């Protein structure tokens, strides 16, 4: 008995050792924006010191096992998934920590030894759809592309020669996000939503926002500076933009934003912190209560940002802000790069897509524009026009794979050098396609979505940038981390709705009805004329009074007969 217990104990400790060391960090980042909005970002990061190549995900400690199993089964190297409602306004809000397009977006790098990437991709999307209750199972080869420049691996890789055939990218612009996605998302966290910062995610409050985005990011990271071994990291974010008008007041507080205060940290978390960005404090002064534990200064890319830092302990915490002056209207100088996208043309035959890129920097800016255009909107490459301030410019490089009906989307990736202080427009014409009868969705007249373009760039300045550097897992890691090569941002444009020629679905029915009526009307007289002979009928000589008498007689007889029958049945 004792020996078995000992064996079990040893086995247990082995499994614990196998588990490696893992850590969980939770952070909440609050940034009042220059407009009447406030940006909040929940940052949950789980790092597990284990090797992705050999890990079986049979036993996990803090790492979500449900996700681990999917990663293992589908040979995933790196996974990024976001579900978003609303549009991030880059021009006025600056850049978010992670950018996401409206709807769902999924991009995955598979391991180099994956045999059938397309099959894995389809099944992975299916599994994820079950994991977070979204219709990701609509992702397949007909709407996925393998971009060469735009989505390079975010994590650490052994092989420096990247082969984009192991990458798949897809977006479902019409996907909705609601509590049904948040519920399973929360269950991936070590403390779920029972304790810690995640308990603030009350659906009644967070869906009352201008923009909300859920995301899951999985990647291998360097374990130390030498980077001979890797750890795996899963980051879960929630990004919310509240509108003061919806909140009712400018003096926000944790309780007003989320319906409750912070009721203590997650006991499994290594650290639990709240950061409030104080950069708007100089122009719109506000007071924080309670006083923060400390102020952190971060110098990045020539800009200093001041953060108020609160350590969340087991006590309740509700941060509130009172503005010292009445509201002022402030205009933020627009960020270096932002973009728009819209449709042109009219009628049911031809149309066009225009993407406008705004470079507000004093120097050239290299950007990569990626467009994933569905097969039902075939674009003509010869109509592609790139104009900066009215003059045609030559792109550095263009990658283009034409689509195939029902098989493959149109993939366009353009590397461009934007001239200083310029507006560049990229336009292409497309044709409206007739779909098959069964391919129309139930609400066909709503229109068909074209997903947003993705514009990637390395910006030289950190103005308006909150994004994390590549090696960083947490917000605290990003402080004082300058980078010589620039700061990576991605801009997602608006999604577009195109009206394809939609048939009248009741038409066959109408045609059948009409045709049958016409045939019936025509057939009757024709049949009569062709089969019956016209014979003259001799005119009867009876008088009117006689005829009436006869009728009356018949009627009386009938009445008598009826009475007799009734008597019988009774």
């Amino acid at each position, binding site marked *: 008995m004792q020996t078995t217990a000992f064996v079990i104990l040893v086995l247990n400790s082995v499994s614990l050792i196998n588990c490696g060391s893992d850590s969980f960090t939770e952070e909440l980042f609050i940034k009042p924006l220059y407009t009447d909005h406030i940006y909040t970002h929940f940052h949950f990061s789980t790092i597990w010191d284990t090797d992705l190549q050999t890990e079986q995900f049979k036993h996990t400690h803090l790492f979500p096992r449900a996700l681990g199993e999917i990663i293992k089964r589908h040979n995933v190297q790196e996974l990024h998934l976001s579900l978003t409602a609303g549009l991030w306004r880059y021009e006025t809000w600056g850049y978010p920590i992670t950018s996401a397009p409206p709807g769902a977006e999924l991009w995955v790098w598979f391991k180099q030894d994956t045999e059938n990437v397309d099959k894995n991709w389809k099944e992975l999307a299916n599994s994820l759809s079950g994991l977070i209750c979204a219709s990701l199972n609509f992702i397949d080869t007909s709407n996925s592309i393998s971009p060469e420049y735009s989505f390079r691996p975010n994590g650490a890789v052994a092989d420096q020669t990247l082969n984009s055939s192991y990458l798949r990218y897809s977006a479902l612009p019409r996907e909705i996000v609601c509590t049904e996605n948040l519920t399973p998302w929360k269950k991936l966290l070590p403390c779920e939503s029972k304790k810690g910062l995640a308990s603030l995610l009350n659906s009644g409050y967070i869906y009352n926002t201008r923009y909300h985005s859920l995301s899951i990011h999985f990647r*291998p990271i360097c374990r130390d500076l030498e980077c001979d071994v890797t750890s795996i990291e899963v980051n879960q974010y929630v990004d919310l933009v509240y509108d003061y008008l919806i909140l009712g007041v400018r003096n926000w507080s944790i309780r007003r934003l989320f319906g409750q205060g912070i009721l203590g940290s997650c006991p499994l978390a290594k650290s639990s912190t709240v950061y409030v960005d104080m950069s708007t404090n100089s122009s719109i002064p506000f007071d924080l209560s309670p006083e923060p534990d400390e102020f952190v200064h971060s110098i990045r890319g020539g800009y200093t940002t001041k953060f108020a830092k609160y350590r969340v302990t087991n006590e309740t915490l509700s941060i509130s802000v009172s503005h010292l002056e009445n509201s002022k209207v402030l205009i933020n100088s627009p960020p270096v790069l932002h973009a728009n996208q819209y449709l042109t043309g009219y009628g049911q035959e031809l149309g066009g897509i225009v993407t406008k890129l705004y470079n507000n920097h004093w120097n050239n800016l290299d950007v990569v524009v990626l467009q994933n255009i569905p097969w039902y909107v075939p674009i003509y490459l010869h109509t592609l026009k790139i104009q900066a301030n009215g003059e045609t410019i030559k792109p550095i490089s263009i990658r283009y794979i034409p689509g195939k009906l029902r098989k493959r989307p149109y993939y366009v990736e353009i590397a461009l050098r934007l001239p200083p202080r310029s507006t560049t427009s990229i336009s292409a014409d497309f044709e409206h396609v007739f779909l098959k009868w069964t391919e129309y969705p139930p609400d066909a007249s709503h229109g068909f979505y074209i997903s947003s373009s993705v514009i990637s760039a*390395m910006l030289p300045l950190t103005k308006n940038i909150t994004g994390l550097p590549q090696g960083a897992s947490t917000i605290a890691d990003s402080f004082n981390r300058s980078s010589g090569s620039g700061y990576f941002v991605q801009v997602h444009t608006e999604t577009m709705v195109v009206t394809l020629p939609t048939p009248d679905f009741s038409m066959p029915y109408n045609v059948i009805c009409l045709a049958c009526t016409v045939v019936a009307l025509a057939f009757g007289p024709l049949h009569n004329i062709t089969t019956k002979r016209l014979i003259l009928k001799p005119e009867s000589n009876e008088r009117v009074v006689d005829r009436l008498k006869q009728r009356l007689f018949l009627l009386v007889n009938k009445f008598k007969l009826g009475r007799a029958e009734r008597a019988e049945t009774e």
Partner: protein
Amino acid sequence: MWISRTNKFSLSLCITPELVLRQLKRSTGKLNLNYCDNNITIHFIFSMFIMNEKNAFVLNITFLVIITVCYGYNYTDNIDDFFRNKHTNNWAVLVDTSRFWFNYRHVSNVLSIYRSVKRLGIPDSQIILMIADDMSCNPRNPRPATVFNNANQHINVYGDDVEVDYRGYEVTVENFVRLLTGRLPPGTPRSKQLLTDEGSNILVYLTGHGGDGFLKFQDSEEITSQEMADALEQMWQKQRYHELFFMIDTCQAASMYEKFYSPNILAVASSLVGEDSLSHHVDPAIGVYIIDRYTYYALEFLENVDPFSKKTIGEFLTVCPKRVCISTVGIRKDLFKRNPHDVPVTDFFGSVRPVKLLSSTSTDTNISISTTKKVISLNKSHYKYVPALISFKK
């Protein structure tokens, strides 16, 4: 002497597959064998199989003796037990087939039932919820992430903890029939599968717009009553359910269950053929009807049921009398073997959870979590971050 003999036989017959038993039960129609213990059934089969000239007589005699003994003994007690023992788990398939904002009430209907079954103990993993449109986070909903069943906004049926398995365009007749019959494409996640067995009690709830003999899905296709009946028969043949409670809230709802021919189905419909099912009331704040009459009263009933409640399905079938429902509630119980008044509501709306009580407990609090680092992996290679964008400066 015969005791030892039968014992031996019963031992050898323990391996008789459940299927044979079941087939036998079916062929005999009414289960006159099951008035006694399972043992008897086994003996009976055996006598049928190995009957030869010599021992056939002895065996048949034995059988008759035992049958009579048992018949006299515990007929009344065991008939219920027999069925109840077979029931091992509960599932629910809740389907809203209507798209568009003005069909808010159908989403509210289905979520009302979802809320009840979840509260009564069926876990989310055993509830397949199909919702054809997003009402909770619809831009027209003035209170996002809520669906109310009442203009007073007492109960948010959407709740804070909800998992929708099929949503939007996924709600199609094909997916619904595939789900029921288990013919799903490879790679379908577990949460989108109905993993039932011959011990499962299933609650099937449908709501939407229907007509005589069909139910519309998303305003673009429809399932006919014959298709529905065939799907259920296929489930029965594949031993995918033990008993099935079929609820439907739609116009001319009774037409949907008329074609059923598989056993152990109890069906209830909100209206008879030729009748419309009506909605309950409108919420002026959102401008649409928010729940249908039948489901409103069903929820009212279910709100007063707890997992240990003694309320029966028989009571549940009378929740909406004509004076409040306006339509006549249709019931079909000829396929169902038990008396609905003896069936607890929790047989379909609750969940059987096998619970074992342990007499000894261990309170070992000295578990230490070792944080020793793992031995470095074998494939040692140098890793690096690649820049997020290629440099085009040349």
